[in-house]
């Protein structure tokens, strides 16, 4: 569905991503992991159009998308969340999602239809559809739900979830992980999930790609990857516990 080939991104003399290639298959949840600063978010930014890759190719459903603008990528069916939630604080929760439903859809369906879809998505992620509630009232968990709802409202085929569960309590973490599974089931969305806390992620994903210092160091099923010596080393010897 998504093929990344030799993707490289340099910032001045610093190489954030170096010849990274991986593939995302339709219907799967792919975990994209790695220590802080390993290039996960840079990869997301390149795929979603927020950054222009220095070189390499990104194809989505057979179409080259490297270098497209973020709104164009969104219209093709790729949505993303941000690591640190970036809600539109001046809009209500419903408006946040409705504006995404209206402008993010591949085809405009009218404002009423956009609002209807927004209400559905809010229900799915478990946020109240109170038309006047402000995102300023939400805590960390609620903001992550809003972030997810806004991305899903654009009607993506592929969701790039920059989840970062840090800052959530264990119950919220488990809830967020369950949420992604439900999203895949109910909306038939393929998901790439970025995370650096691994335990939760490893239980959910079908496959894992591991980045370290901008390079891909491992790829495969969670169990194999967790035992790969390079991965263990990248995580400073931290033992990866699989439940």
């Amino acid at each position: 569905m998504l093929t990344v080939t030799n993707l490289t991104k340099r910032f001045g003399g610093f190489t954030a991503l170096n010849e990274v290639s991986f593939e995302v298959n339709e219907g799967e949840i792919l975990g994209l992991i790695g220590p802080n600063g390993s290039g996960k978010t840079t990869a997301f930014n390149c795929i979603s159009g927020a950054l222009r890759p220095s070189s390499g190719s990104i194809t989505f459903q057979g179409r080259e998308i490297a270098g497209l603008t973020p709104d164009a990528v969104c219209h093709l069916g790729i949505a993303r969340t941000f690591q640190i939630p970036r809600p539109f604080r001046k809009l209500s929760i419903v408006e946040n999602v409705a504006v995404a439903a209206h402008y993010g859809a591949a085809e405009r369906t009218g404002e009423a239809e956009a609002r209807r879809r927004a209400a559905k998505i809010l229900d799915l992620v478990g946020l109240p559809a109170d038309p006047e509630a402000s995102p300023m009232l939400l805590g960390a968990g609620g903001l992550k739900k809003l972030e997810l709802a806004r991305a899903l409202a654009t009607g993506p085929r592929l969701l790039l979830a920059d989840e970062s569960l840090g800052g959530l309590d264990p119950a919220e973490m488990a809830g967020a992980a369950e949420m992604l599974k439900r999203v895949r089931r109910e909306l038939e969305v393929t998901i790439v999930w970025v995370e650096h806390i691994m335990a939760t992620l490893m239980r959910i994903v079908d496959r894992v790609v591991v980045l370290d210092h901008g390079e891909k160091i491992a790829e495969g099923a969670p169990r194999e990857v967790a035992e790969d010596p390079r991965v263990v080393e990248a995580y400073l010897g931290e033992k990866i516990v699989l439940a």
Partner: protein
Amino acid sequence: MRRALVPVLAALLALAPLVPMAGMKQYVLHVMIQILIWSFIGGAWSLMGRFGLVSLGHGAFLGLGAYATVLLWNFWAWSPWLGGAVAVVLTAILAAVVAYPCSRFQVVGHYFGLVTLAVGEVIRLLIIAERDWTGGSLGVSLKPVGSDSLWALQFADKRVFYYGALALWLAGLWVWHRVDRSMARSAMEAIGEDETAAASVGIHVTRFKIAITVLSAALTAVGGVAYAQYIAYVNPDTLAGIGVSLRIVFAVVLGGMYSLLGPAVGAALTIALSEWLRIAFGLKLIGMAETIYGFLLVVFIIFLPAGIVGSAGGLLRGGARYGPPHPPDARRAPA
């Protein structure tokens, strides 16, 4: 209470020219026409100002609209209906030319203000430099036709201009309301807050910014045409450059740029205040009127940062709310 106030206010505005005011009528009408035209211009400015696109160069659009119309009439006898339309189109093109690079290269905030400030000055200096056409810094008068003419938009009776300005102002409120109620407002709020996040949900940032700038500039040009036709004289200092650009901004900030009637309240207060100070001081203590005017503006802006209408609205809803913004129809809970 607000519902009852609207018809009373509407009736007052509609009947104002019919009220006998002894010898003062011409003067009162003159001030009211000015207030209506500047309210319309302020409303046009706030269309983009409320989304964080603070332009300090709307004088450019005002001046281009006014001068193009007057010159087309004086030199080629183009009716202001036609000349005004041409002027508005020219202004829209200028606005797009300014807005495109600004949004393409993410020139926002203070930098956007500086760019627009420069554009306003460029237009003022161009007007002064092209003196064979424009009369330079002396300005130029509209060629009179000598009788009332709808074709030339010239009337001896101020009441005609009064009703014209009133209609214009109401049309401006209608546009403001339409924008406020649309999904495009949400998109513009989103862009004003976080361009990256807005683009990530499919909002075409550049297109929206150009569109709102062009709309705001085109309406400002219409205001310039109206002002030129009424005063029948255009001058680079009153219609272009920093002075008038800031005057528009002050009035709107004072009244409140996030509310429908904010620009009108601001324009009414600033014009009434400067008229009153001008009359009170006359030729005594030259500069004192401007000093007091400036001082009062600073006081208002410090203590009522959401503008008079915005702050009053906040008070009515319980507790003053400082800082922007709270769209008029959405009651937000505090953080």
